[in-house]
């Protein structure tokens, strides 16, 4: 715990310490980075199931007759098309087309939206939304009263359904009020690992009971407790963006393959003009996937076309892929360089770049994203 004194604690912090987790400070929170081996936790999620405490994330409710209008004004994806009981990936754009945060918007009822935001941006997001509030849409911060537990992996559904049979029919990106082991909560079929699974928004004071119930219920299925370390390797393999890495105030959604989550068809939307311009102008940079040879390229590593003196871009996230057993990286590179590699790949050639790994230029083969293709649902 020495690494995280003074940090905020989730309702599950004592559970993590008791389970032998290594605790680190992340976004001002004391969070488990790993319980034992990151590789073993990662493998459990790909092959069985993993349990994550993500209570550090923020939850904001937008409620009222004009809640939909406020969501449509402040978020890139079109909340108006969202039916009650459905969720969508979205972003909070700036006026100049950058991104304040990426979020999941859950429409719980016609006039009630739940917005799940990143822990590192929660305070900024809340202030941002409040500053742009409109009459008829009240904004309620539910972060402190909400615990959030994610259960992910091919066996996640079987474990959850044993406790709440009604959740068997919840579709991908669906959300509903449910009772799990006697605890009333909001269950969503969402997650951040590339696997099937659920995110369970529960009252903070019931988080420990829910956590223990899931641990017990999933024991024979190989359910593993998972920390932030495995969460990061899993999301990189699935090429899921992380704010501050693939997303930021100075990165356009179109540069990082997230144009699909921008429905810039609403002139009243914040950033409308900038995003329309960005969509028409074509991306000047592009997110690509790399297999790096001879070392792990970490965030910030410079990317080059072979032999060129000037960098063509930089690595946004890099790690060892436990599933593939090799280093992988995502990089934001010059649009022309990205286009050239795409053209080479289309001709069946290997598109090769170089990455500066700790002072040495390493060969890096361009590959499609995501690195690991989601297996079909069983």
């Amino acid at each position, binding site marked *: 715990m020495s690494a995280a004194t003074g940090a905020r604690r989730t309702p599950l912090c004592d559970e993590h310490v008791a389970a032998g987790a290594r605790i680190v400070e992340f976004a001002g929170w004391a969070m488990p*980075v790993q319980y034992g081996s990151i590789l073993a936790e990662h493998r459990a999620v790909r092959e069985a199931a993993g349990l994550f405490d993500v209570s550090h994330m923020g939850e904001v409710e937008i409620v009222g007759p004009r809640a939909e209008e406020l969501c449509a004004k402040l978020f890139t994806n079109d909340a108006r098309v969202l039916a009650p009981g459905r969720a969508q990936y979205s972003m909070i754009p700036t006026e100049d087309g950058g991104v304040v945060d990426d979020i999941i918007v859950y429409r719980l009822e016609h006039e009630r939206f739940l917005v799940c935001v990143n822990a590192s941006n929660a305070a900024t997001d809340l202030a941002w939304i409040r500053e742009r509030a409109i009459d008829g849409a009240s904004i309620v911060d539910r972060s402190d009263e909400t615990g959030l537990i994610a259960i992910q992996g091919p066996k996640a559904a079987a474990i959850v359904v044993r406790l709440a049979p009604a959740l068997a029919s919840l579709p991908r990106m669906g959300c509903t009020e449910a009772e799990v082991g006697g605890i009333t909560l909001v269950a969503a079929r969402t997650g951040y690992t590339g696997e099937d699974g659920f995110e369970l928004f529960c009252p903070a004071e019931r988080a420990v009971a829910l956590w223990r119930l899931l641990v017990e219920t999933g024991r024979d299925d190989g359910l593993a407790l998972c920390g932030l370390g495995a969460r990061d390797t899993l999301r990189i393999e699935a090429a899921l963006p992380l704010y501050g890495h693939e997303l930021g105030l100075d990165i356009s959604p179109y540069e990082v393959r997230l144009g699909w989550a921008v429905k810039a068809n609403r002139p009243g939307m914040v950033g409308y003009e900038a995003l329309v311009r960005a969509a028409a102008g074509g991306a000047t940079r592009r997110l690509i996937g790399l297999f790096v040879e001879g070392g*792990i390229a970490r965030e910030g590593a410079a990317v080059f076309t072979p032999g060129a003196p000037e960098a063509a871009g930089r690595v946004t996230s890099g790690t*060892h892929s436990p599933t593939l057993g090799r280093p992988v990286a995502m990089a934001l590179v010059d649009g022309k360089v990205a286009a050239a590699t795409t053209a080479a790949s289309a001709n069946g050639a290997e598109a090769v770049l170089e990455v500066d790994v700790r002072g040495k230029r390493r060969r890096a083969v361009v590959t499609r994203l995501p690195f690991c293709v989601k297996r079909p649902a069983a």
Partner: protein
Amino acid sequence: MEVPDDLRYTSEHEWVRVEPDGTVTVGITDYAQSQLGDIVFVELPKAADEPEVTRDEPFAVVESVKAASDIYAPISGKVIEVNEELPDSPNTINEDPYGDGWLVRLQPKNVAEVEELMDSDAYEELISELGE
């Protein structure tokens, strides 16, 4: 945390064993491997070149999922053998840091340098101060 009493240690968490033939085997400690976590990549010097290493200068890299770590030469000398198995199974360092997870064997330039390294008691005190 295992700290064998027949080894010598550096403050950078390398260990040194003096072999009967006067050569020296070098690895990283149990504490170091546990701090690093799952080790997934190891870069060692090429034994065939018999490169010289210099005390306190980096000669190898060990990378875990979380971070890369330079490995510093505990003494000066010539590399006479490297653990060829490690690049293919880097997590051997996690499993057996004082045994099969050794990194290199050195021909010391000056044996007296070994005597300047910490003994197990001093190293144990160091890691207890560092915590975990």
